[in-house]
């Protein structure tokens, strides 16, 4: 009996090894399962991490460096006043459901996102659009109400992909795009499977099939990669296990960057955070390097404003408020904040917040601020902190790319209000000259660092673990995506 069991186990092992040798399929691990697979109707990053560039394509696309590349628009021209974009569309493209792609699809897709009953999570991306004209089948002319410096970048977001008019309503459960992979099946709670689209208009991907497998528990994720059940885990949830993978030749560890600007958001409408001296003091009190070491196992880059080092026009402002507890104390005294003052710090579930909160509380304690740590689940965070702005301070990572606009909004949860910043932002989005744009991005970052509405901490790292034989995975996450179109196995 014992021998039989052993034989069975050995047989199962061999079968598993045989499958791995085929080398034209990929199993990729993700922490969160997407709620559905329609990036035009939900904000969850997980939707994009499955579908972006694999299933769906837009007129433009963002590449692994964050640059704008042609996709379904093979080229474009912009009028000198920056108000008219003429896109030349790729001819002969078919959706996975057989619907041909042409200018009418552009009108449909953008019109759907802009409609009054639109549920597009990034509806504001389309706000500059005045109209879309189709002079011929494969030319789309988009006119804007005002110039928009980010328009081509914005149209590369997952929220701006082209959807088939025939199947847009069912994309959530049966996604249909124009991409090199098409949807095969979704075993809810476990995995999504994609297969190569033989009718793809561009060059064929090397992989025949891709499986996205969802493992939320860090120990389970480590186990699944070690056991070979998962080939690559691009946003690996257990940084403490990284050294183990580094020491193991079978695996490669990638440390890249994300757009995740991790901050202590302060309620600028509430005392004492309405006082700029207090906000600066809270920043002086934090040793970012030590924080990253303690809360993120050393992964992450310090930031001094709401912008990450890998984006164009980045200015290093981390030296604006260097770690200086004495100065923090002096500023707090000057602002009349007594030692021992208690503030509540809301901590949503991600480890950067829960672990980071402990470290920050200890650092603030040194300058006489008592932080009461309140763990809070995501749904409650969105309701209490984000919607009702009933909070003192919270740790959160803003993962949207190049989102300097949130500081120019009328009502946003940290209640920052600066007419100077708003004017500057308007000048920036309407600037047509690239040089002027870059200068203005710098000016915006400096203005934020000067006002320090929030304590800017660090950019989240993209720490990934993969089989050492895999080639072509994205190391950075300039937008949420697992673009596997260029992935292959080394011989």
């Amino acid at each position, binding site marked *: 009996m014992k021998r039989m069991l052993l034989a069975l186990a050995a047989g199962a092992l061999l079968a598993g090894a045989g499958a791995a040798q085929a080398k034209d399929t990929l199993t990729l691990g993700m922490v969160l399962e997407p709620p559905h697979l329609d990036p035009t109707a939900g904000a969850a990053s997980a939707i994009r991490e499955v579908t972006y560039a694999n299933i769906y394509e837009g007129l433009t696309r963002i590449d692994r460096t964050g640059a704008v590349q042609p996709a379904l628009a093979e080229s474009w021209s912009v009028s000198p006043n920056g108000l008219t974009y003429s896109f030349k569309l790729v001819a002969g493209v078919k959706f996975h459901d057989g619907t041909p792609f042409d200018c009418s699809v552009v009108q449909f897709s953008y019109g759907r996102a802009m409609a009054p009953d*639109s*549920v597009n999570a990034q509806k504001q991306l389309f706000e500059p659009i005045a109209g879309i004209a189709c002079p011929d089948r494969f030319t789309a002319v988009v006119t804007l109400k005002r110039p928009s410096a980010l328009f081509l970048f914005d149209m590369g977001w997952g929220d701006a992909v082209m959807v088939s008019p025939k199947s847009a309503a069912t994309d959530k459960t049966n996604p249909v795009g124009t991409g090199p992979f098409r949807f095969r099946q979704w075993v809810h709670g*476990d995995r999504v499977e994609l297969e190569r689209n033989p009718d793809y208009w561009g060059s064929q991907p090397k992989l025949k099939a891709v499986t996205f497998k969802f493992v939320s528990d860090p120990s389970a994720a480590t186990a699944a990669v070690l*056991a070979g059940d998962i080939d690559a885990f691009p946003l690996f949830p257990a940084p403490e296990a990284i050294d183990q993978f580094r020491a193991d030749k079978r695996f490669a560890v990638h440390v890249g960057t994300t757009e995740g600007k991790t901050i202590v958001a302060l309620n600028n409408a509430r005392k004492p955070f309405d006082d700029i001296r207090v906000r600066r003091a809270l920043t002086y009190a934090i040793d970012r390097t030590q924080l990253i070491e303690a809360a993120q196992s050393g992964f992450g880059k310090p930031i001094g404003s709401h912008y990450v080092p890998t984006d164009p026009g980045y200015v290093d402002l981390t030296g604006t408020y260097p770690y200086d507890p004495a100065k923090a104390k002096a500023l707090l005294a000057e602002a009349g904040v007594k030692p021992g003052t208690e503030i509540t710090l809301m901590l949503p579930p991600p480890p950067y917040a829960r672990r980071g909160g402990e470290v920050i509380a200890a650092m603030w304690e040194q300058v006489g601020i008592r932080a009461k740590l309140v763990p809070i*689940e*995501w*749904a409650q965070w*969105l309701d209490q902190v984000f919607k009702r702005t009933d909070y003192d301070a919270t740790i959160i990572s803003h993962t949207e790319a190049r989102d300097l606009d949130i500081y120019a909004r009328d009502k946003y949860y940290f209640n920052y209000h600066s007419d100077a910043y708003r004017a500057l932002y308007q000048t920036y989005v309407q600037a047509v000259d690239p040089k002027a744009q870059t200068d203005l991005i710098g000016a915006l970052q400096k203005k934020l660092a000067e006002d320090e509405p929030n304590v800017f901490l660090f950019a989240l790292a993209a720490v990934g673990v993969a089989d050492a034989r895999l080639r072509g995975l994205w190391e950075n996450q300039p937008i949420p995506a697992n673009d596997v179109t260029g992935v292959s196995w080394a011989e």
Partner: protein
Amino acid sequence: MTGFLLRRLLILLATLIAASLVVFAVLQVLPGDPAAIMLGTGARPDTVAALRHRLGLDAPLALRYLRWIAGLATGDFGISYTYSVPVRTLIGERVLVSLPLAVLAIVLSTAIAIPVGVLAAARRGRAADAAMMGVAQVGVAIPNFWLGLLLILLFAIRLPWLPASGFPGWDGGAWPALRALILPALALGLPQGAILARVTRAAVIETLGEDFVRTARAWGLSRRAALWRHAVPNALVPVVTLIGLQFSFLLAGTVIVENVFTLPGLGRLVFQAIAQRDLIVVQDLVVLLAGSVIAVNFVVDLVAAWLDPRQRLAA
């Protein structure tokens, strides 16, 4: 007997209605808006309002409750907010993971616990008894998520015999699916088995001291025959009652164990649905789980009555 069944059915119905009211009320008080969660931090308020309307969340409370109950009565569980698929489909898929898992766990725990308990009782006070009850004591103390992690470390990583997590589905054949359930079933079943073993031992020891066992021995029955023919069957009533109670614990335990092993079962679904404020799914699941616990207790009562001839005759 008919009166007994009717009473039971009425209690079942009343409990379900009470459960539905409680869960609906609690979820209304719970902060968090499914539409806001789906649209994230970039969305504008008008977009959130559009989605709330589309999901039917802007209707008055009473109307929403009645719509839900009327749906349930006709077998329509509604559409999941987050997944956009019928809740019935969602539950149907996941029952195929959780039910086999719970059954496997019960079978494992019972298969281990009853022989161990009876043996320990037969050898009470001796080394074998002490050893078995010592192990059981540890088993009672170990939380199932930790046991799960230990099992993964040992049988999935150190000895790569079984998958560490995930569930391949039943389409690929019964064996790969069962393999994926073995470790979770052990993690779930062993602590329950430890409790069951202790209860079995106590129950058997108690019956061994009863007059009828002594009488049986006096009639010339061997120790073994007295134990198995007279003591054990009489000790089974509390044991079966406990197995029934444990079934409810197992349902709760699946929430934790399914998360440790990332199994796409009901427990993980309820956990995710609460986090996402997929209210309709949470409501349906709570009513469903309440219903199944009541149903299991009912079956346990019947089995206990059948096991005890006095109750059988009285009925």
